C-alpha cells in the first residue's frame, strides 16, 4: 500500500486517513500487541523520569508515539535469527527482541547490570545473542553495517534477513545512498526501514528533505520502495511480515518509509519542542496514537474493556517499577573495568 499524500505542509496529519480493514487476528494476539506497546511506552516514560531525577545522563531518546512500528516489525521477523540494527532510539527494539528490561534500563542508568556493563548508555544497547546489533550514535553510520550483516548472511547462504532501521534525518546521509547502491548491486537481503517521525532532531521534514516522499529514494537503485502507515500496529505487522518474507525469498533489499510521529522531544535534553512544532500539531498527532487506536479496535470487537485495560496498565507499571528497583540497586562499573574489552586479546597502555 502506497500512501502518496504527503505533499502538504501540515504536520501531524501526514497519513490523515487510516485504512478500513477487517480484523482477523485473535484476541490473544491483539492483547500481546497492546501489552508490548504499552510496556514500551511506560518503560520510556520511566526513562524520562529517571533522566529528570539525574539517574541517567548524556543523550537519551525515547520511542513514545512510535511503538506500533517496532512492535509490528519485530513480530514479523525470526527473533534471534534475523539481524536487527538501529540508531540511538534503540530501547524498544531491544525490549521486543527479548533483552531483559533490567539490562536495558541498567544500561540507560550506566550500571553494571546494563547490556554493556554501563559503557554504552542509552544510545548503545546491544544484544547480539538475540540478533540485536545496536544501538549506534552517528546518524546514518550504521546503515552500511546492517548491509554488512545481510552480506554475511548471503555470503554464508543463511536464510537470514537484516532489518536496518533509521530515522528520516539519516535518510539524507551520503553513506545511506552508497549502501543502497551496493545492497541492490550485491542482492542483499536487507530491509531498510525509515522511521519517519517527521523530524531530524529539531528540523522538520520539509526543511531537511528536498522531496518529502523519502520512499522514492530507493527507486533509482532498482529497490522495492514503499511508504506505509506506522501508527496502526495490526496493519504494520501484516505488511512487515509480507515484506520480510519477500526479502528472504527474493534475496533482494527493500526500502520502506514508515510514517510515524514522536510525541516526545528528540532527546531527553530537548525541552523546547515549540521551537519546531506547535501544541495544536501535537494534539492532532495524538489522535493517531497507536495504543489508543488498538484499544478502541479491541473494545469494539469485545476483546477489551476499560477496566481490563487499566488493570494491564497497572500491572505493567508495577513491572517497570520493579525493574527500576533492580537497576537502582545495581552498582556502577568498577574503575578497573575501564580498560576491559577495548581489544579482544590485550589491554592498551594504562594511565594518563
Amino acid at each position: 500500500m502506497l500512501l502518496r499524500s504527503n505533499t502538504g505542509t501540515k504536520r501531524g496529519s501526514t497519513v490523515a486517513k487510516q485504512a478500513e480493514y477487517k480484523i482477523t487476528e485473535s484476541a490473544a494476539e491483539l492483547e500481546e500487541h497492546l501489552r508490548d506497546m504499552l510496556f514500551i511506552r511506560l518503560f520510556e516514560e520511566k526513562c524520562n523520569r529517571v533522566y529528570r531525577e539525574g539517574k541517567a545522563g548524556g543523550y537519551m531518546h525515547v520511542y513514545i508515539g512510535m511503538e506500533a512500528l517496532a512492535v509490528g516489525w519485530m513480530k514479523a521477523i525470526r527473533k534471534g535469527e534475523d539481524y536487527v540494527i538501529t540508531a540511538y532510539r534503540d530501547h524498544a527494539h531491544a525490549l521486543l527482541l527479548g533483552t531483559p528490561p533490567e539490562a536495558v534500563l541498567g544500561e540507560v542508568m550506566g550500571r553494571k547490570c546494563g547490556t554493556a556493563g554501563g559503557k554504552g548508555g542509552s544510545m548503545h544497547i546491544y544484544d547480539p545473542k538475540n540478533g540485536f546489533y545496536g544501538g549506534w550514535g552517528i546518524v546514518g553510520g550504521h546503515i552500511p553495517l546492517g548491509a554488512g550483516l545481510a552480506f554475511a548472511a548471503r555470503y554464508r547462504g543463511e536464510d537470514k534477513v537484516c532489518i536496518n532501521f533509521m530515522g528520516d534525518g539519516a535518510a539524507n546521509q551520503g553513506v545511506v545512498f552508497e549502501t543502497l547502491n551496493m545492497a541492490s548491486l550485491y542482492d542483499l537481503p536487507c530491509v531498510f526501514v525509515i522511521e519517519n517521525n517527521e523530524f531530524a532532531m529539531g528540523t522538520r521534514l520539509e526543511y531537511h528533505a528536498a522531496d518529502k516522499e523519502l520512499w522514492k529514494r530507493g527507486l533509482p537503485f532498482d529497490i522495492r520502495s514503499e511508504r506505509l502507515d506506522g501508527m496502526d500496529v495490526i496493519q504494520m505487522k501484516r505488511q512487515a511480515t509480507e515484506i520480510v518474507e519477500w526479502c528472504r525469498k527474493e534475496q533482494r533489499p527493500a526500502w520502506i518509509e514508515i510514517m510515524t510521529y514522536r510525541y516526545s522531544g528528540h532527546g531527553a535534553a530537548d525541552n523546547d519542542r515549540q521551537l519546531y512544532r506547535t501544541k495544536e500539531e501535537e494534539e492532532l498527532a495524538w489522535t493517531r496514537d497507536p495504543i489508543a487506536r488498538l484499544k478502541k479496535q479491541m473494545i469494539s470487537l469485545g476483546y477489551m474493556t476499560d477496566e481490563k485495560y487499566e488493570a494491564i496498565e497497572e500491572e505493567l507499571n508495577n513491572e517497570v517499577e520493579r525493574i527500576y528497583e533492580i537497576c537502582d540497586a545495581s552498582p556502577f562499573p568498577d574503575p578497573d573495568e575501564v580498560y576491559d574489552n577495548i581489544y579482544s586479546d590485550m589491554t592498551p597502555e594504562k594511565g594518563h
Partner: protein
Amino acid sequence: MALEMTYREALAKSIEEEMQKNSEVFIMGEDIGRYQGTFKVTRGFVEKFGSRSANYNYRILDTPITECGFTGIGIGAAMAGLRPIVEFMTMSFSILALDQIINHAAKVHYMTNGEVKCPIVFRGPGGAAKQLSAQHSHSMDGWYAHVPGLKVVCPATVADAYGMMKSAIADDNPVIFYENPGLYTVKGEIPDDINYSVPIGKGQILREGKDISLIGYSRMTQVHLAAAEMLAKDGIDCEVVDVRSLLPLDTETIYNSVRKTHRAVVTYEDWRSGGFGGEIVSRIQEDCFDDLDAPVIRVGGLNVPMPYARNLELLCIPSEEDVIAAVHKIR
C-alpha cells in the same frame, strides 16, 4: 628453505593462502577483481576465487568507488563473524571511511562490552608513490595509531609483509595494514612455510650497532638500512630498529637499543609536526632520560601538501641524506 619474491608478491601469497585455508576470509575493494588491483596485489584472484563473468564475486568483491559505504559493509560482515580484508586503493582514500573505521570498527568491541568482535583488515598503500601529488600521498599511519581499538602495523621487509598479513587476518580486532608503495618492488626472502607468521606488537633489530639508534618503520626502515651503510664508511656504527607495529608499540625493543647506544634518530614519512615519530621520541625521553647523551631527533616529512614536481616531492620525503644530517647533529 627460503623463497625469493617481492613485497607485493609476499602480500598476495599471504592473502591467497589464508583465503584458501578459510572460506570466511574474503577481500573487497575498488578494482581488485576484474582489473586485478590498482597496485596488482590481487592479480589473478578473480580467476581463483570467482569468475570474470559473474556480476559480483563475494570472495573477491569489486566495489563501487564509495569508500565509506563499502568499508561499513565490511565492518558489518566482520561483526557477523566473517573475516574481511578491505583494500583501499590508497590509504589517502581511507579518509573518506574514517567515520566507519574510527567510530564503528574501533569502538564496537568496547561499546558492546566484548560481545561483538570485529576481525577485519584494512590495507593498502600509504605514503608517497611517485608524483601522485597532494591528495594521493598521505601517510595515515600516525592518524590510526592514535585510536584505541585499532591495531596498526607497518612492515618494512618482505618476510614481515608475508608474516604480519597472516597475523592481521587471524586477529580478532580491526588491523590497519599499512603498505608503503615504495616497498612493493623491494625483494627479499620468506620461509617456505604457509603457517609462518610474525606476531603483531614486536619490533626488531635489523642491524646491530653501538653508536646510535635509527628508529623507524615501513619504508623508512629501508632508508635507515641504506643510511647505516653510508655512515659505517665514516666509522659511525648505527643500530637499525624496525618498529613494525605502531599499535601496540613494542617500547622494550626501542628502549633496549637506546640504553645501549645513548643516542637516537626517529624517522617517519608522515608530516613532521604531530606525526607518530613524535610519540616515539616522547616515550624515549620519558622513560630513558638518564640513558641519553643527546636530544632525540625527529626526521619527518616536510609540513606541506605533497607537491607534484619530482624534485619537490623528493625534497618532502625523508631521505638517507636527511637521516645522515640528523645523525651528525647529535654525534
